[in-house]
């Protein structure tokens, strides 16, 4: 069970990494290695991630991002009233520790009545979806089969009303990731859940919450949104970065006159996606905060 779980975590980690969340990915790889210390893939990816970061000619500024990540834990000896995260409740929300209806400790697996032997959890769902981004999985199709994931569209065989159970799984997965402090991954999962069950109040509530958390984290990383970010690198250096076209687009808009707030309006993407890209560019030292 542990190795299987570990592999699922790795798949999820790869997925996150490709969507730009390296820290989240690293966390999942580490967790996978804890569960299954002999897992070579986990070790490989973990080392790979380290190498990739080390190899970057523009290492991230050392302290800032880490601080942002643990914003919620910044006040270890604080009185109860201070527990939690200013950023989070500043966004009109309680801190992460308080009033979370989904806070039950990670019930990852599907209840027994969920199917005949198919212990499917959210991470598996995660790992087999998304043909639209084929580059997400570097593994051949057969590898996925090994983990007992039913082929696409076979969910019905398990006698589970597809929408509902997948939804539950996704919700649990999201809680799982929130548990790991990975809001970025949780948002992705919840986005998927929303596609399955548009308007489901639980998904909506959880998604809003985690988005807000994530947004607050990203915004605190970006700082004052009225500031004007600047590109730190020469055009000749930029082409050697590892960016996708969306990051390329955002980077192209940074001309020394637009503010972060303007960029949110300009990007044509959601505020969250834009903030993520900006945070990534900032982390990699491509732009300066202004």
């Amino acid at each position: 069970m542990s190795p299987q779980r570990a592999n699922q975590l790795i798949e999820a980690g790869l997925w996150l990494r490709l969507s730009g969340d390296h820290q989240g990915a690293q966390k999942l790889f580490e967790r996978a290695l804890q569960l299954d210390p002999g897992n070579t893939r986990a070790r490989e990816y973990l080392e790979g991630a380290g190498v990739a970061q080390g190899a970057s000619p523009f290492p991230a500024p050392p302290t800032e991002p880490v601080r942002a990540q643990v914003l919620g834990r910044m006040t270890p000896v604080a009185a109860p009233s201070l527990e939690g995260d200013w950023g989070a409740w500043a966004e009109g929300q309680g801190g992460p520790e308080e009033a979370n209806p989904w806070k039950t400790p990670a019930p990852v697996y599907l209840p027994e009545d969920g199917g005949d032997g198919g212990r499917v959890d959210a991470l598996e769902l995660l790992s087999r979806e998304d043909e639209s981004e084929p580059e997400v999985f570097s593994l051949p199709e057969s590898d996925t089969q090994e983990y007992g994931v039913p082929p696409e569209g076979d969910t019905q065989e398990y006698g589970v009303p597809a929408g509902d159970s997948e939804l539950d799984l996704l919700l649990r997965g999201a809680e799982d990731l929130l548990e790991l402090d990975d809001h970025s991954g949780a948002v992705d999962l919840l986005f998927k859940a929303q596609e399955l069950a548009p308007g489901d109040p639980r998904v909506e509530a959880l998604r809003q919450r985690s988005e807000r958390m994530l947004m607050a984290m990203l915004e605190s990383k970006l700082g004052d949104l009225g500031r004007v970010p600047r590109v730190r690198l020469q055009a000749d250096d930029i082409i050697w970065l590892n960016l996708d076209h969306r990051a390329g687009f955002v980077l192209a808009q940074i001309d020394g006159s637009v503010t972060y707030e303007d960029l949110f309006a300009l990007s044509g993407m959601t505020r969250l996606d834009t903030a993520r890209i900006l945070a990534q560019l900032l982390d990699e030292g491509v732009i300066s905060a202004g």
Partner: protein
Amino acid sequence: MAESEPLIGIDLGTTNSIVATVQDGQPVVIKNRTGQALTPSVVAVSKNGKRLVGGIAKRQAITNPQETVYAAKRLIGRKFSSHEVQDALRSLPYAVVAGQHDDLRIRMGGKDLSVPEISAMILQELKADAEAHFGRPVSKAVITVPAYFNDAQRQATKDAGRIAGLDVLRIINEPTAAALAYGFGRTVNGRVAVLDLGGGTFDVSVLEINQGVFDVVGTGGDTYLGGEDWDNRIIEWLVFGFAKEHGIDLRKDRMALQRLKDAAEKAKVELSSVRESQINLPFISTPPGGGAALHLNATLTRDKLDDLTSDLAERVVGITTEVLGEAGVRPSELKEVILVGGMSRMPRIVEAVRGYFRREPCKGVHPEEVVALGAAIQAHALAGQESELLLLDVTPQSLGVAIAGGFVRRIIPKNTTVPTSATEVFATSKDFQRVVKIMVLQGEHEMAQQNELLGEFVLTGLREALRGQVEIEVTFDINAEGIVSVSAKDRETALRQSITVTASSGLTEEELKRIMEEQREYLMAARLSDELKAKRVELDTLARDVVDALTRARLLPGGGGLAVDVMPRAEQALDHARRVRDAEDVGALGRACELLSGCLTQLRAPAQGGARR
């Protein structure tokens, strides 16, 4: 003595707008708050519901096409059913719907807005730029319109000004403004051609200047020829080159297209002063099979650009020839040729014009600013200091009535100075005609149908007689405000009917009032929300600092020498801040900030070595 109120001139363009003023006797352009002379005439509502105007709206135009309105000038004051609007609809990505009285509404941000409202957003932006420049309120302006604009379009432009909180002193013709900027009102007597090649339209006007009076002799052009066509040729060239190299069609990707558009315009502008331009667009596209994002690198030379756009330059000459021909003016008769609009920076265009007219055209250093400068000069003149330059208000188009056979009888020719009045006598056209219908028309075409119908009324109770025996006197009267009243009188019975025609922009007075009210509310709300936002940021920063300072104090033995009550009070202040943060009360937020900053000072005091006990 208090300084006189600043006056501005506005060139409200199809693609770009400019505001100017006269300072120390010199007309100058007022740069906008991002430091540019040109403000793109684009408004948008972004994904997060924010209203964007100008450069920022233009830059997201392609990635957010449904919510971005550009070239509203092509629609202003027009009827929904007109063929100009129907033509425009085919190419516009934003939604246009019919209004209640055959006017049109533009759907933006989930609201149906009239065209003057859209234009008002641009005017408001320019007004704010001017206010930032002067450091005090600005409310009086002269706005320019193309010479071919009819009354409805002029009135709609005026309405836009009113909505934006501007008192529109005068609407003047763009070519007239350009000629004014060159001082031709004083120095030239004779005919002048003005060629205005802007971002989206090409207008040709022939003016007759006589002792400082400007007459529009002929107008024409193409409302779909401008700098954007040149940009599009560059985009096509780039897209084609990229497709050949990588097999990817960049036009399918909105983000790529937006970058191509920005880059094409930049390259075009550069090539007016240098012979070669580098186009570098890193990470323009991620290949469909995955893998590293691709870069686009290209070098465009001026010769290549001329090559790509030679037919466009030919069209400029062709249209000019046509308009001059229609006006019956030979190029050699012209006293001057003025080149206006950003595109006249292009060497190829100047060359083509020089070749056609066989003379050097007048072209300032900043040809796109000329119209706004002229408008500023006119505004200044209207204020009374330089009455010699005062333009008379004239009727922009002829006024007349429909007569038998579907023709028009002109009663007041265009360019007549107002106020004015004219009377003409008509006779019945049928035997035993008891009723006559008076249709008031505006325009230059001899067929009634081709003119704008301003209004109609019926005169009844005519004596039964053979045709031609009953005489009806029709009188047109235009007062100083441009309001036209038309009356018809049966000469025998003295029976009289009349109507008053006010130019209508498509908006009724009530609608206008409501819109102006909404505008005021919007501005108030925007100002309030800006203040709230700023205060919240301040509050958040202070709160974080207080939390930090508290944490530090707790870690130190004995609280780092703080007074007993400092920490609990800081906690209370934080609690209070938390409570008021989401309230829409700037005052409460301000007080919470003060409270927090007081706590912060106390918390930090011993750390700075100066224990105050």
